[in-house]
């Protein structure tokens, strides 16, 4: 039974990868491809947020700052110092990782709302720092003129496939990294600390170290994604730190299902499409009588509320529940969670 389930999963994963590879060959609409790339970048940020929020139970509002720091670091290195994006992007991830350590030190011993307040303050501090250094960062207008990615004479923006496959590979690596992490003893320790902190430390789990590592591990791929984002859109904008994007990404985690990783990955892409297509269609704003921007965020907020009220486990929770019911008694609790 277990082997059958494993084989099915492998087949599903393989089918998913093949379908993914075929998408740019089949889809002609450039907007849909553009949104897919954006959705995958957001999915990376959201699924890594799931590590701290879902598994560690720590509400880290500075998470988006890691994405922003990656974007600005790589952008500034390229624009101001002429450093290749292929070096700038890893530098962005390293800077995001450093920032995660700085944020985590005061945050790891706090609980609940105090973590949210402190990390939100840190995120705003980074934003203010960027805005105040407008000669370097471009201030409110953002950092423009960020070079696009290229290898030799091959320019990524001129190809329909390049960004799609690059970001897809990054998302795949990020997802594998996260799944391995949460299935490891480190993942167990995060769940234990989240479920019952006092009991967890009584079993030898070093709270400060594990939480610091959770912050650190959750910052690396968003840092990389931020760098790619800046070179993909050829701009690094302070909007990255805004509440609107934070709400959208939070909806990906909550609607996808906290502590699932796969949920935010899938719903990350879906929500990006929904949100962006709502922003570009007129009928919703005509119906509600307000401009298009607010309507989509109202929609996102309503989706979050409805999910929390009726499906607190999110979409992935529903899928797992359905899958567990349809199996004939042979599944173990380990498989249920995997």
């Amino acid at each position, binding site marked *: 039974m277990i082997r059958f389930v494993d084989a099915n999963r492998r087949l599903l994963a393989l089918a998913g990868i093949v379908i993914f590879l075929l998408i740019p060959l089949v889809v002609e609409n450039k907007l849909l491809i553009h949104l897919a790339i954006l959705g995958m970048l957001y999915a990376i940020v959201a699924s890594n947020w799931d590590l701290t929020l879902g598994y560690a139970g720590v509400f880290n509002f500075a998470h988006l700052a890691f994405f922003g720091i990656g974007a600005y670091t790589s952008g500034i290195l390229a624009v101001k110092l002429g450093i290749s994006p292929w070096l700038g992007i890893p530098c962005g991830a390293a800077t995001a990782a450093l920032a995660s350590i700085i944020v985590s030190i005061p945050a790891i011993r706090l609980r609940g709302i105090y973590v949210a307040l402190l990390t939100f303050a840190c995120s705003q501090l980074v934003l203010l720092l960027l805005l105040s250094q407008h000669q370097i960062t471009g201030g409110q207008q953002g950092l423009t003129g960020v070079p696009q990615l290229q290898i030799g004479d091959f320019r990524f923006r001129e190809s329909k496939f390049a960004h799609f496959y690059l970001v897809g590979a990054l998302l795949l690596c990020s997802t594998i990294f996260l799944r391995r992490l949460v299935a490891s*003893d480190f993942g*167990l*320790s995060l*769940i*234990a600390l989240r*479920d*019952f902190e*006092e*009991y*967890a*430390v*009584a*079993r*030898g*789990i*070093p*709270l400060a170290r594990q939480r610091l590592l959770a912050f650190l591990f959750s910052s690396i791929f968003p840092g990389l994604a931020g760098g790619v984002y800046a070179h993909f859109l050829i701009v690094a904008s302070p909007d990255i730190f805004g509440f609107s994007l934070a709400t959208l990404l939070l909806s990906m985690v909550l609607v996808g299902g906290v502590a699932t990783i796969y949920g935010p990955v899938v719903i990350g892409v879906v929500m990006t499409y929904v949100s962006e297509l709502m922003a570009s269609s007129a009928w919703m704003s005509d119906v509600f009588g307000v401009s298009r921007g607010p309507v989509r965020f109202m929609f996102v907020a309503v989706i979050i509320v409805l999910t929390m009220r009726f499906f607190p486990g999110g979409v992935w929770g529903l899928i797992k529940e359905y899958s567990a019911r349809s199996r004939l008694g042979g599944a*173990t*609790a*380990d498989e249920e969670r995997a």
Partner: protein
Amino acid sequence: MTAILSVNSATKKFGELVAVDNVSFEVNEGEIYGIAGPNGAGKTTLFNLITGIPYHTDAGVVTYRGEDISQLSPHKIYELGIARTFQKETAFDTLTVQENVRIGAVFGTELAVEDYDSAVDAALESLDLIDDRQRLAGELSLYAKKRLMIASAIVSNPNLLMLDEPAGGLNMAELSELESLILRLSQSEMTIIIIEHVLPLLFGVSNRVMVMDFGERLAEGAPEALARDDAVIEAYLGERGKDAFHAISG
């Protein structure tokens, strides 16, 4: 006899309330040391002070094998070989029984990676939980959860095991099993401190017992002597209860 644990003048205050008041005692290697006392006597607070969860002493010193552990982090205390259970049945409910015990084996122990699985299996066998290994801990009965807590504590093969009211809520058959288990663990050279309200169990397994009341150490000695100690009887039954006790027992 060598002392494995020494508590000297431990004190803990919560505002005006003195929960543990200048308490001193020693536990010898290999013995079962009982702690009794009415509700609110400060027994669990004393356990919390020894293990640093979730607070340390305001004054006084806790020494484990000669090392001052009064202000040490809880995970460091576990690393030294002190494992405890909690009064309320406690488990990581979203993890399986096996994963619950594995946590005790992985962190803060000297076990090699390749020995984790065998150590977990041995602990599960010992507590008769091997058939429940894949169940979620949240699905277990009260007695099974209490055994799981002990399994996750002994998997690290601690030198000092601290059991906080392990018999609470158990029926007679389970109490009997628990008594056998405690004696079996003690035979494996584990030192045990046990807090318990079920006095027949406590007095049955302990080499020595300390009785606490209002945060203070009221008496200490062999169980059979304490059972006839007027101060102890009064702490449990009050003055009139003590008189009635003497009238009944002659």
